[in-house]
């Protein structure tokens, strides 16, 4: 389908626009992407009084056919980054290079060719489907918009897609409300597949689903990857899911990538204290592991991205923080002893086997005080 060389951004002088042999470069390259959302005040004369620094200089590569997992907590910028990659948001600065072509400054019109090749699956299968339109026309939309098929041909292809994702093609004329959550997510997958994209960005695709249904969608995505040679960027906050589906995983904190490595490497020997804390906080459905593991409890909340901490953004909550961490921002680099693909942005990376210690006083001290003090609460029945 769509060839890379198609519309060229006249303003850009990137040499990479000359279509190189497909295997030479990664499918997607993100370089120094920055996304700020302005905060404005005033009614007539809106002044910008600050900005939410949602994504602050992220660089990464996604290889053909792999699944890159993106994890982090609420507000870390992972969804914003996903929308920057697919150019649903204009970038504040930086570059997104898709299959060798810089798409970061293309106009909406020029982007169309690329949109055929990169699609998105959203978290909320209720909010992402128009409730007043029939399933057949929702899935057929991409085919209509890109003028690929219409009439009987479009219907045939939509029904084929429905079958591929495990929906009954006879339900072509039903409305989204007639489907369960898992089936709606299948509709979203079918819509994303319609144009035979090479890259699909999945933003929390299974978070809204029941446990027993989650696995159906995860398996479906895995099958489709093999069948259609897809590359995924897979965003989720559930670490077990990310570990299961990803080849490599990037961890984000407050708009930056703090660590990136092969999945087994990252989960086996995390080097960034935030990764270590995040991994230890996740509750695995295995009682022995869940109870034996040493839990690193981070205190406090994630700072505001409007006014992020200086230096390393994690230093305010980091159990290993030293004075230099608040001044000097550590670059994302390979740490001593790590394989080439494992990068960490930390001055004092966690050593293998090292146990981190939380920073605040143990809870039980205050609880004991409570249990001992104020006897007046405990006496007397209902007044």
């Amino acid at each position, binding site marked *: 389908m769509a060839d890379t060389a198609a519309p060229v951004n006249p303003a850009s002088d990137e040499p990479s626009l000359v279509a190189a042999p497909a295997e030479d470069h990664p499918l997607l390259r993100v370089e120094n992407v920055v996304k700020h959302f302005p905060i404005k005040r005033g009614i007539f004369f809106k002044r910008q009084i600050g900005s939410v620094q949602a994504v602050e200089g992220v660089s990464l590569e996604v290889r053909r056919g792999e699944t890159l997992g993106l994890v982090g*907590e*609420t507000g870390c910028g992972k969804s914003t980054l996903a929308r920057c990659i697919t150019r649903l948001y204009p970038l504040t600065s930086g570059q997104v290079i898709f299959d060798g072509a810089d798409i970061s400054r293309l106009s909406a019109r020029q982007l169309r060719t690329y949109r055929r090749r990169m699609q998105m699956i959203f978290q909320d299968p209720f909010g992402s489907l128009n409730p007043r339109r029939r399933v057949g026309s929702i899935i057929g939309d991409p085919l209509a918009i890109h003028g690929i098929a219409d009439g009987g041909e479009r219907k045939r292809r939509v029904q084929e897609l429905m*079958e591929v*994702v*495990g929906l*009954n*093609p*006879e339900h072509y004329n039903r409305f989204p409300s007639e489907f*369960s959550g*898992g*089936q709606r997510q*299948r509709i979203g997958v079918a819509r994303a597949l319609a144009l035979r994209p090479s890259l699909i960005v999945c933003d929390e695709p299974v978070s809204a689903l*029941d*446990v*027993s*249904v*989650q*696995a*159906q969608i*995860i*398996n*479906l995505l895995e099958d489709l990857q093999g069948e259609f040679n897809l590359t995924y960027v897979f965003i989720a*906050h559930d670490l*077990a*899911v990310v*570990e*299961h589906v990803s080849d490599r995983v990037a961890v984000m904190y407050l708009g930056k990538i703090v660590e990136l490595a092969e999945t087994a490497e990252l989960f086996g020997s995390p080097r960034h204290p935030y990764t270590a804390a*995040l991994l*230890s*906080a996740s*509750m*695995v*459905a*295995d*009682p*022995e*592991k*869940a*109870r034996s593991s040493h*839990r690193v*409890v*981070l*205190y*406090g*909340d994630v700072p505001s991205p409007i006014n992020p901490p200086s230096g390393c953004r994690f230093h305010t909550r980091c159990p290993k923080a030293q004075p230099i961490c608040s001044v000097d921002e550590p670059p994302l680099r390979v740490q001593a002893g790590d394989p080439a693909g494992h990068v960490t942005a930390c001055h004092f990376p966690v050593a293998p086997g090292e146990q981190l210690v939380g920073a*605040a006083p143990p*809870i*039980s001290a*205050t*609880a*004991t005080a*409570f249990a001992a*003090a*104020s006897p*007046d*609460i*405990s006496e007397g*029945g*209902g*007044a």
Partner: protein
Amino acid sequence: MSLLSVRDLTVSFPTSDGVVRAVRGLSFDVEAGQTLGIVGETGSGKSVSALSLLGLNPGADISGSAVFEGTELLALRQDQLRRVRGAEIAMIFQDPLSSLHPYYRVGWQICEAIRTHRRTSRAEAMRQAVELLRMVSIPQPERRVSAFPHELSGGMRQRAMIAMALALRPKLLIADEPTTALDATVQAQLMELLGGMQRELGMAMIVITHDLGLVATVADSVLVMYAGRGAERADYRTIFRSPHHPYTRGLLASIPGAAGSGGRLVPIVGQPPSLIRIPSGCAFHPRCPFAMDVCVRDQPPFVPVSGGEGHLSACWLPPDAVGVDAAADVARQRYVEGRRGPAIARLRAAVAGARPGGAVAHG
């Protein structure tokens, strides 16, 4: 004697579409100082059963029995129930933003809870509110006590909810999806906090969740619910190592990282049923890989099985059909082979007719 003993609890809601049978004969016990995890998917009746105990389901038809420290909760008048609620049994909810009143300051709301149950001066109640906020590790409690809920982060709001729930030192705390809306690191903070408080105050907890990871971490015993009934109940080790019910087995196989999964996930086919039209016999039979003819016809009793002490399961498989490994599944399969007749054949035909494309997704 158990702190709370629920027997044959049944809750249904008349609606214009038909009667929603949310809970259908549920029995469980909670021991003093222990944590019971109630696991189930959306619509399994786990929240409804907890709300019914506290009389928080107006409009529902409730029958059965729930004895808390010798008092039958389901027979109490509203004014009597009010004395129990909050003081003896407290509850924290999933969404701390909608369960705190947006118009009132956090401290005021905690004071209200205290002053409803205890004769305390306003100043004294406020002093206690500050102490409670300090206890749940809210920084600068003297200031936060006069904050509005929207001024606090999600984790802090849930802490404020916990402070309010613990204000009267309840004997039982019901936590309904306490950490579902929160991030992993905040979830770990809160569960550590709750665990610490539980040990100090000797209170019992019911943790209602769909998250098997949370249950694996905090529960002493686990009750798995499906379509309004108890499917299986055991201590936490048995549930994860030697489950009996195919639904529990299926949940473990479909979760990445769970004890019984490895390599490719094995999902449970189909969807949870509608509570208006619940399948005949065992409600799980349309989704069960081990369904037999008897499962379509008769509801299985909740009886002891051989995974461990106090292990109960509602399934027609033989009592020793426990375990998560392949050998256990082979044994289950061998048992059901001779017991599949016309009922299962009809079921298979109906499924195949309804979903011609289904094979791709579930195959």
